[in-house]
């Protein structure tokens, strides 16, 4: 069983997202270790990008903070290598296609494989452009995570057939962020996916409360939360780790209950 399979084999999965380097790489490293301890099944680490077009203001600001702190992709690779010495939780990088392409796609994937990053999530790389990364992901054993959105409709079948690892189901229209109400299209999306292939479906975009997470977990295999956590990081800065840990613990509890 690989790390991603394991992430979805311990009840419904809870998948937290944080931006690497916000507020510092030292804190990010602590956050990853503590979130894993609090029950996070897979951790999404954002490699900050100057122009994150799929993000709402909360994660945009986190990216800006991380970059103005001077964080680079190489430093993030080194940090993950350190984390891997004591942590075996599945890790996915979430970033945009340009930081991967400009770093050198093969060089990027090779490094991911060396530090045992399990998956890549690239919101501006749709199915039609997946060849940009797919050959290198296959060569270096890193899963390229596919995304489906409420607008995907008849595209779902095509995307799901090629999907591997797990499927990132975008719950609602728009960008990442905390939402009071989450579209109930998500349940229908998951149903359509499962008709085609038995692949774990994790739901993201807009989820922040344990109640929302529990609702989403009822019909899916996992819940992804980003902005709500990044908000805690923003609020408490260097002291954020215990607050984030407690939040992750509550959320994991909510999704498995």
């Amino acid at each position, binding site marked *: 069983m690989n790390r991603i399979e394991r992430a979805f084999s311990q009840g419904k999965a809870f998948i937290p997202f944080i931006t690497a380097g916000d507020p510092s790489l030292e804190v990010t490293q602590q956050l990853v270790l503590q979130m894993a301890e609090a029950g996070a099944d897979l951790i999404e680490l954002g490699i900050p990008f100057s122009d994150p077009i*799929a993000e709402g203001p909360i994660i945009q600001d986190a990216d800006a903070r991380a970059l103005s702190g001077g964080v680079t992709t190489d430093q993030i690779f080194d940090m993950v290598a350190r984390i891997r010495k004591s942590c075996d939780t599945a890790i996915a990088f979430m970033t945009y296609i*340009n930081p991967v392409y400009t770093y050198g796609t093969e060089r990027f994937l090779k490094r991911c494989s060396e530090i045992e990053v399990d998956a890549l999530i690239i919101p*501006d790389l749709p199915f039609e452009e997946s060849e*940009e990364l797919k050959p290198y992901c296959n060569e270096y054993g890193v899963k390229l995570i596919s995304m*489906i959105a409420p607008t995907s*409709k008849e*595209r779902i079948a095509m995307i799901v057939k090629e999907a591997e690892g797990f499927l990132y189901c975008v719950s609602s*229209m728009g960008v990442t962020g905390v939402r009071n109400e989450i579209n109930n299209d998500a349940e229908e999306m998951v149903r359509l996916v499962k008709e085609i292939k038995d692949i774990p479906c994790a739901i993201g975009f807009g989820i922040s409360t344990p109640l929302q997470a529990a609702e989403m977990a009822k019909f899916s295999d996992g819940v992804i939360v980003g902005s709500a956590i990044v908000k805690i990081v923003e609020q408490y800065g260097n002291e954020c780790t215990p607050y984030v840990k407690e939040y992750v613990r509550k959320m994991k509890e909510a999704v498995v209950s």
Partner: protein
Amino acid sequence: MSKGRFGIHGGQYIPETLMNAIIELEQAYEKYKKDEEFCEELNDLLNNYAGRPSLLYYAEKMTKDLGGAKIYLKREDLNHTGSHKINNVLGQVLLAKKMGKTRVIAETGAGQHGVATATAAALLGMECEIFMGKEDTERQALNVFRMELLGARVHAVTSGTQTLKDAVNETMREWTKRVEDTHYVLGSVMGPHPFPTIVRDFQSIIGREVKEQLLMIEGRLPDAVLACVGGGSNAMGIFHEFINHKEVRLIGCEAAGDGVDTDKTAATMATGTIGIFHGMKSYFCQDEYGQIAPVYSISAGLDYPGIGPEHAYLNDCGRAEYVPVTDREAIEGFEYLSRMEGIIPAVESAHAVAYAKKLAPDMGKDQIMVINLSGRGDKDVAQIARYRGVQINE
């Protein structure tokens, strides 16, 4: 390889949420561009509303002063709303209407594209929202008011560098929020396929007219065609017709800001590397980690860290040349054309005028140069005054 490629450039690098909208747009465009009724309606708007064809003006004084090539100006500044932007906007808004959309959104840098979009939306009865970097709303305050006057809502974008690229980011985000009834009127030959092709096609009327007009006046094609390049829509518009006429030199003039050896520049070809951003593979000003660089130019319309994918291709295959022009040179071009010909060009177009001043004397008197005067300079007068240290009330 995916759709919409120009060599290795182009493609469709956008979130899944937008893919169906992009596919729908491509299908609608393929259908309507061959639809007689659509073409007639668009031609009617271009001729009877926007004022086409635009003049091809022989700049006799400038020609004599520079003592080389015979210089013609393609007067896109005389179009309704004051720039070439209206050509693309009328096409796209009409297309959006045919597609059953009721709302259009657009980014704008200098405000020319925003004004054109707001104009077309007013005329064709569409709801309109414009996204403009906060810094640009300040240096182009008059255009903000102009858009509001036309019934558009203008959002000042405060993220990132608060200029054109951030306006594009925010318009893309807005489109992912509300795509069902909304069309994104992209203002340049950039973004994901099919935008670079659609915008080029709608702008290519510029080059077609130039060819026809010049054949009529001179009985021959030009030796060189010059245009300023940010995203590159006016340049693609005038270049396109001449691409297969290999003897015609195509020259894109980029905004070098303080100079290509400084970090205050927006000259993408001169200082950029290949990357993938805003839906396309092309050249971008960026660092070694793929972080998009903050760029600078006095011209809000050229203050963009990328360039359209077809330009990237024309550069790679050597069909077009791209040259950097500094702020200082552009302002000299701005003032030169104003005094020499009594034509105040947009500070964007002034970049092409500035390079023409350098190039024309080296060309023979029997040679012909066409400069695309993509916009008029009224919007820039206050800023140029500030640059020259003159305090005026707008």
